[in-house]
């Protein structure tokens, strides 16, 4: 927790920030496998067959599901199913009902709007209504208080809402895993995927490679994937070996020292996974570097090294993965997973980061273009775009820009490495099998990259 968030949550700080109209960052509810999915009742709005399917999902998780609540009763989550809207005029009654409940939300509550893909309809009125929900959701997210979030769940035109990934995505958005995800829409496009036998161990039996695992977000990803049941192969450059060993020993994994930009990196990873585990299920391309300079001052080394590490290595390794038998073995309908780290810099751009933004936008393009290849082996490839995350890297930013960057998000704070890791873990799970080619932002709805 940063110093300001600590202060704002102190007794004096709470009063002072309120009086002065300063940002009031909340202490976010984060995922803990041993606490309930939601700390209170969840209200389900909207009547349709999809709504019934959503109710089924919620009831299976032993949630206190309501169609109505008493005034002043506290609510931990609201799921609004708007899949049948045909015209913008259809939105009013349901969203206003939602509005009337907002004051009853608990801290870190969740609002989830389920709707159909705008691109799935050629009818101008229907598409307008659906597109309208997207704008509505993003605006609502900015009105949420006390660590609460609002996100959209977009279903493919013909997708049955009982599909496993609808359940998976719904659960992810309701849970503490999505603490720093707000104002986003998550697209579920296929019936692929499977629900875990044990929601506490969704990656049980999986073998996962994490590049750049020695520190920061990579170390958090290794830790979270391991907590979720995966065996970890941690990859980093030999120079980071000491921290890599420390991380890997804490998750009982194996360390593989290899420079991912070397041509044989993909084969080294495959060989290690084959020899040690006989399988490879998940590859997380997390390793990345920054070499910031204004373009006018940019040299070849800075440009090339960022592109080589952040995108070219991923393209080369994916090529090797997709050519291998080891990475194409579907089990119980769940195939391989690639999760790649993009950045909100790659979406919004960032002064001094032309090289970094090019590489990270490149990741978004790569992921979209590789989706079909992965789907053909029942797998998925997705990207996670972190916003401002509290890491060693951002700790080195000058104090003022750092403070501004934190408060620009709807949650008025920076995210933690674990927030990125939880999203990666979700996308790596069987329950996310219907989500493919997407880039999901973990940015607390930061203004930058909106």
């Amino acid at each position: 927790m940063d110093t300001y968030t600590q202060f704002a949550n102190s007794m004096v700080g709470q009063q002072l920030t309120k009086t002065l109209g300063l940002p009031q960052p909340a202490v976010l509810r984060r995922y803990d496998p041993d606490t309930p999915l939601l700390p209170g009742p969840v209200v389900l709005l909207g009547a349709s067959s999809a709504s019934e399917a959503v109710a089924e999902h919620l009831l299976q998780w032993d949630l206190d599901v309501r169609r109505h609540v008493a005034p002043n009763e506290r609510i931990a989550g609201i799921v609004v199913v708007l899949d049948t809207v045909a015209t913008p005029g259809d939105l009013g009654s349901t969203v206003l009902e939602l509005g009337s409940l907002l004051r009853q939300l608990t801290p870190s509550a969740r609002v989830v709007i389920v709707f159909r893909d705008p691109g799935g309809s050629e009818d101008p009125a229907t598409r307008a209504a659906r597109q309208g929900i997207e704008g509505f959701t993003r605006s609502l997210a900015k009105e949420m208080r006390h660590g609460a979030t609002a996100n959209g769940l977009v279903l493919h035109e013909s997708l049955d809402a009982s599909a496993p990934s609808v359940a998976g995505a719904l659960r992810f958005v309701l849970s503490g895993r999505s603490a720093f995800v707000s104002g986003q829409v998550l697209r579920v496009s296929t019936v692929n995927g499977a629900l875990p036998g044990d929601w506490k161990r969704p990656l049980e039996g999986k073998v996962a490679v994490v590049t750049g695992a020695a520190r920061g977000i990579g170390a958090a990803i290794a830790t979270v994937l391991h907590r979720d049941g995966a065996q970890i192969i941690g990859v980093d450059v030999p120079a980071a070996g000491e921290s890599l060993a420390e991380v890997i020993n804490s998750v009982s994994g194996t360390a593989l020292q290899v420079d991912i930009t070397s041509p044989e990196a993909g084969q080294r990873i495959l060989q290690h996974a084959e020899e040690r585990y006989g399988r490879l299920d998940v590859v997380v391309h997390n390793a990345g570097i920054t070499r910031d300079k204004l373009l006018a001052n940019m040299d070849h080394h800075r440009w090339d090294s960022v592109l080589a590490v952040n995108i070219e290595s991923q393209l080369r390794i994916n090529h090797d993965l997709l050519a291998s038998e080891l990475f194409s073995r579907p089990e119980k309908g769940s195939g391989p997973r690639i999760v790649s780290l993009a950045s909100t810099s790659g979406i919004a751009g960032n002064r001094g980061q032309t090289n970094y933004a090019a590489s990270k936008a490149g990741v978004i393009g790569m992921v979209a273009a590789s989706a079909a290849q992965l789907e053909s082996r029942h797998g998925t490839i997705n990207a996670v775009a972190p916003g401002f995350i509290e890491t060693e890297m951002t700790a080195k930013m000058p104090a003022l820009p750092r403070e501004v960057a934190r408060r620009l998000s709807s949650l008025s704070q920076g995210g933690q490495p674990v927030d990125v890791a939880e999203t990666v873990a979700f996308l790596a799970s069987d329950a996310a099998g219907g989500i493919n080619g997407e880039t999901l932002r973990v940015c607390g709805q930061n203004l930058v990259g909106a």
Partner: protein
Amino acid sequence: MSSSPSTPREALILGGNRIPFARAHGPYAAVSAQDMLTATLEGLIARFGLQGERLGAVGGGAVLKHPRNFNLVRESVLGTALDPTTPAYDVQMACATGMEAIGSVADKIRLGRIDSGVGCGADSISDAPIVVTDELQAVLMKASRAKTAASRLAALSTLRPGHLLPQAPGVDEPRTGMSMGEHMAVTAHRMGISREDQDAIALASHRRLAAAYDAGFFDDLITAFRSVTLDTILRPDTTAEKLAGLDPVFGKDLGEEATLTAGNSTALTDGAAAVLLSSQDWAEEHNLPVLASFLDYEQAAVDFVDGAEGLLMAPVQAAERLLRRHDMQLEDFEYVEIHEAFAATVLAHTTGWEERGLGRADPERINVVGSSLAAGHPFAATGPRIVATTAKLLHGQPGARALISVCAAGGQGITAIIEGR
């Protein structure tokens, strides 16, 4: 147990780890041998996924050891992610400490006594124990034996300022009073080993080690430590001219005929290294590829005190017995790894072997990825460094063999044969 007592099973080398070696009083100056050994084991554990594993034994040691480190290896093991019920023991055989640790672990595996183990070593010149004078020690002991305050005071009153001067640990041979370098200088002179030949070995050592680093050879042999990623003694850009320009540092009484310089002698070094060994079954159960088999090893000692034999010439005898036992000649080895205590040591050993009819070691097969002159020589860590390196060289060449030769103070030495898988 699959093997019968009469035919020992194989002791297999699965891999190794070391930290980058560093010149003494350099980046590891504030680090203890135990810290270095712990980090080395942690890197090994991470590489092979040994967290929570109870190994059969971890054997190792240090040459320069403070009395408080009487359980150096056990204490290091307790600081790692290994199962704390993993037994550990310290051994010490001067610069052959690491080799003896590996050999003894291998023997336990061959006998079926244990299924897995680590042979390791660490040495810190920077953290060497400082010893008190004999006089101070005598006074303190007398005071501690005293039964009354008065007699204790009486004992302490005999202390003189000169008694308090610290004594640096001696590295000279106790029986000759000569340093190892002086001994080597005498042997080199007697055998007519030229300065040029010594410098050529030093140059090759640096070039080969640097090339191996560049090729990523050490990616799975070294784990960075305290921001050091590369052996600090390594000079990739050294030249024959630079080496030729150095003044002799040993055998100065030989005048113009002195040949041992700082360039062709190993520098004092801090570092640690470890090798993982196991039985075939254990390796299979743990899905760990086998690099090589630790076939056999042999210790030898020479009587150097009367001057008839060179201090560092024991590996000549050790190799002779070992090669005769296996009916082999030097030409039968794909690689020959000779610890470069001094460049002259390599030449003295190969000449000695040749004289005893063991054949000729092709220089192109000796120390192919560099050795101690370039990597440095943290005494007890040198054996594990060489064994892990050699096992990796042999991996993928089933049946190919390597001879390892390490000399040690006290006129001792160890040679070993390992075979590729």
